[in-house]
């Protein structure tokens, strides 16, 4: 058609906006962008810039960190511990994720409840539990003495072992859920097909299932590794002086020694290490996979991602080693074949052991809270409600709870608005760069918290926001919003847009559509996102340490101070109250899921009858 026939006609504002759909589609992301750029990217840039003195290009701090043994040891130790933690989390988590992904929905919900409750229980509480369990008077030592293996308590607490145990306890469930998300997409019929075609179970697993699950393993390992590198609480409380990790180093340098250039440089190194790991990982997997936020590609399962690295490895192995493989596979099958049964007893035994490992600390805390002793000994010598009475009268705890609720509420409000609007924009925009924007919007939860904490500290101090309520809430919102983005993006992606079209053509205005169709349908996701955001804020320690100033203490701060200076069962009573809230929240959401499955099952039957 020639240009002349394409008439220019007066356009309404509505139509004008539609014509510029590309840009308009990103407009809802404005609050998210302000939050990310204003309180994440710029602060990070500031500390990186200051780490080498800006234009002075003074790299003395870097030289010190990389040459002075004190700092280098900390760096090396951080990576060593993180590597161990990653290894154990994956090895111990894989079978659990495997079993979980093979269960029927209802059983999977029951099993996952035992993972979710510890997962959502505050880091601090769990670390406190491990102090109780691993301490000189703890369960492990008491048991060992009772069994006669040792005569006097052995040192477990304040060793690297304790740090690794505590970190695995925190990170393994996260790894399990990441692996589970990938495994759940693997078509189990392929396993059946391989067996029908003559592969024994061991070979089927190694050649069919394992390769398909590897992207999940890789995603989980990456996530666990980058989280481990930035750990602060666990090494600080469970480790000894030799277990200092880089986050602690940064805290000490910037809060105690006030050696800021060194702190900036350490933070920058930590940041770069994280980015390097992420870059390496991105050669193998789409990074979204770490939060199970990748778009499921029907039919291709995990195989869409043919990682360059993996392909090379496989080619190298496949050529020369296949006879070796075959021998090993057959030998393994002969060995474990008799142990394999239809009912997968060994998988269940292993999974149950792991679940006990995950849940035990929580239970220990609950039991300890009823202790009659003023000391943290386990098992408690007698029953008493004294700690609850104390807690009931403890005004400082009440104030901390109120402070946490206030800040959490505000952070959730900001997070939900910015995150949900941003998720809409990121999913629905036709712009091509949106994947990068999506990853960017997740970056506050990717980089180590200490880096963000330090960056916000310096930045807000310069803005004059430090120690203000607004400043603290923004800090929490920066951390909570990415979770909202993850949850809402997947919900929006799964949302059937023809519903909005149907509403629109039948007379509903955009605002009406949002109010009566879109938001009501997304309500479950909004609830999940809000809860998650709240938990993140409720559990936040590091950013709060830096930004709190003279504001009233939040619960984690109160907890943190008490663990260090006043270690008594009152903490366990306070913890129990929080645990109960978590159990309640997890219980309700799991029960809702269960009900949805049941209803669907009933419906399915009903339809079969009528058909």
């Amino acid at each position, binding site marked *: 058609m020639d240009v002349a*026939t394409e008439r220019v006609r007066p*356009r309404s504002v509505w139509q004008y906006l539609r014509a510029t759909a590309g840009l308009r589609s990103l407009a809802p992301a404005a609050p998210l962008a302000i939050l990310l750029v204003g309180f994440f990217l710029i602060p990070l840039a500031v500390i990186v810039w200051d780490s080498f003195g800006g234009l002075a290009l003074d790299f003395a701090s870097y030289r010190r960190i990389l040459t002075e043994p004190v700092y280098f040891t900390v760096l090396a130790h951080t990576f060593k511990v993180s590597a161990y933690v990653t290894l154990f989390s994956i090895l111990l988590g894989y079978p659990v994720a495997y079993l979980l992904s093979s269960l029927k929905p209802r059983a999977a919900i029951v099993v996952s409840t035992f993972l979710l409750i510890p997962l959502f229980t505050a880091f601090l509480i769990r670390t406190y539990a491990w102090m109780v369990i691993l301490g000189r008077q703890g369960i492990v030592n008491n048991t060992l003495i009772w069994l006669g293996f040792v005569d006097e308590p052995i040192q477990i607490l304040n060793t690297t072992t304790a740090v690794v145990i505590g970190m695995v306890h925190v990170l393994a469930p996260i790894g399990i859920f990441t692996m589970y998300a990938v495994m759940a997409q693997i078509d189990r019929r392929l396993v059946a097909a391989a067996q029908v075609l003559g592969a024994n179970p061991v070979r089927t697993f190694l050649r069919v299932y394992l390769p398909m699950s590897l992207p999940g393993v890789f995603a989980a390992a990456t996530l666990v590794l980058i989280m481990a590198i930035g750990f602060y609480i666990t090494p600080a409380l469970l480790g000894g002086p030799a277990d200092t990790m880089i986050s602690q180093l940064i805290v000490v340098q910037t809060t105690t020694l006030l050696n800021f250039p060194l702190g900036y440089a350490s933070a920058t190194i930590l940041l770069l290490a994280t980015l390097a790991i992420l870059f390496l990982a991105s050669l193998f997997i789409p990074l979204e996979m770490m939060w199970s936020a990748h778009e499921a590609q029907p039919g291709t399962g995990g195989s869409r991602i043919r990682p360059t690295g993996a392909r090379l490895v496989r080619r190298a192995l496949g050529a020369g080693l296949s006879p070796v493989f075959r021998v090993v596979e057959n030998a393994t099958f002969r060995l474990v074949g008799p142990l394999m049964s239809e009912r997968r007893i060994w998988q269940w035994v292993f999974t149950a052991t792991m679940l006990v490992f995950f849940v035990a600390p929580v239970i220990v805390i609950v039991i300890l809270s009823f202790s009659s002793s003023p000391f943290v000994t386990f098992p408690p010598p007698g029953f008493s409600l004294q700690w609850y009475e104390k807690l009931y009268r403890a005004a400082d705890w009440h104030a901390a709870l109120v402070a946490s609720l206030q800040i959490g509420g505000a952070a959730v409000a900001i997070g939900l608005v910015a995150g949900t609007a941003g998720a809409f924009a990121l999913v629905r925009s036709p712009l091509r760069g949106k994947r990068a924007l999506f990853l960017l919007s997740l970056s506050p939860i990717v980089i180590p918290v200490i880096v963000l904490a330090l960056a916000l500290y310096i930045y807000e101090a310069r803005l004059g926001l430090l120690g203000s309520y607004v400043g603290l809430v923004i800090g929490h919102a920066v951390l909570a919003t990415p979770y909202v983005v993850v949850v809402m993006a997947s919900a929006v992606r799964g949302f059937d847009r*023809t519903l909005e079209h*149907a*509403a629109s*053509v039948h007379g509903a205005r955009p605002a009406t559509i949002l109010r009566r169709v879109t938001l009501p349908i997304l309500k479950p996701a909004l609830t999940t996102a809000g809860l998650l955001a709240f938990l993140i804020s409720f559990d936040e320690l590091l950013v709060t340490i830096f930004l709190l100033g003279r504001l009233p203490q939040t619960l984690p701060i109160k907890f943190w101070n008490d663990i260090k200076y006043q270690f008594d069962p009152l903490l366990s009573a306070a913890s129990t109250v929080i645990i109960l809230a978590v159990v309640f929240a997890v219980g309700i959401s799991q029960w809702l899921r269960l009900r949805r499955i049941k209803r669907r099952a009933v419906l399915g039957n009903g339809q079969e009858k009528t058909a």
Partner: protein
Amino acid sequence: MSTSLVLRNVSKVYGRDGRAVSDFSLDVAPGEFVTLLGPSGSGKTTVLKMIAGFETPTAGEIELGGESVVTLPPYRRGIGMVFQNYALFPHMTVFENVAFPLSVRDVDRREIAVKAREALALVHLEEFADRYPTQLSGGQQQRVALARAVVFRPRILLMDEPLGALDRNLRERMKTEIKRIQRELRMTVVYVTHDQDEALTLSDRIAVMRDGRLVQAAPGPELYNRPADSFVARFVGESNIFDCEVVADGAGARMLRLPNGALVAAPSAAGEVVAHRLMIRPERISILRGEEVSGAALSGRIREAVFLGETTRYEIDAEGLSLTVKDQNRGAAPFPVGAHVALTWRPDDAVLLSD
């Protein structure tokens, strides 16, 4: 109540991918049932989306009842629409779904109740008012979608492959149902499908689309008997299509030379057409035994015979041409494979195609 719809030189260009719809023009009279028929990717759904207002035409004009709606958002156009997957609101009951178009128009509550009940009665679903869409079968959901689309007596009803997800029996029933409701409400309907049976059963007029262009818009019988080109001929019904050449025989009569050299009589309308192709429907060809018939158009051998109940379908080799013939079963034994047969047709049953 019902309105005319005019599409004038409508085009839609997507990004750099090129044109989805090119220079599309169509007039739909009030109360008319028009079907947009075409293979997937032919642009029929894009046309529907532009009528509904989900897409803005790159060029051209769309008028409802004589006034341009191009600049109106969907919610101001007063259109009812049934979607391919029904697009029922999962969080609302059947009643709330049907009441939706009225409630967003701030209609009085009591009136909503009355009208929604009426619409549900129209599709025989009164007793399902309090169910949720997921608690209904596919056919029931389809009818809820229909009730929702007509409850506010829209100026025009759009239907986007509404029967695609239903099984065969249900589809037959729903066709009758849709036709009945359309007649009862005397509504203008634009219906999109790739299924020629649906198009033929339901429509007053069928607009065949190909590659974003309108190929032919005509009532079903005309489309079938006088297709505009070989695409329409192939898409609507079965057809035999040959290249041909118009020649004059010794007596000066117009004849057609087929690729195998055979000469057949030209249809009387052949005069003005610069003919390139000849189309003849399989059931218009008479099939006769052996060479006993003189003056047959073609002679051939049966390559394959398939019994289809009311008809038998033959694949025939006619000296290098391959033909499909459908023969009514009237009790005579079918021709065996390999039998020599003669084929004839009335010259005017053949159609000369312009492409």
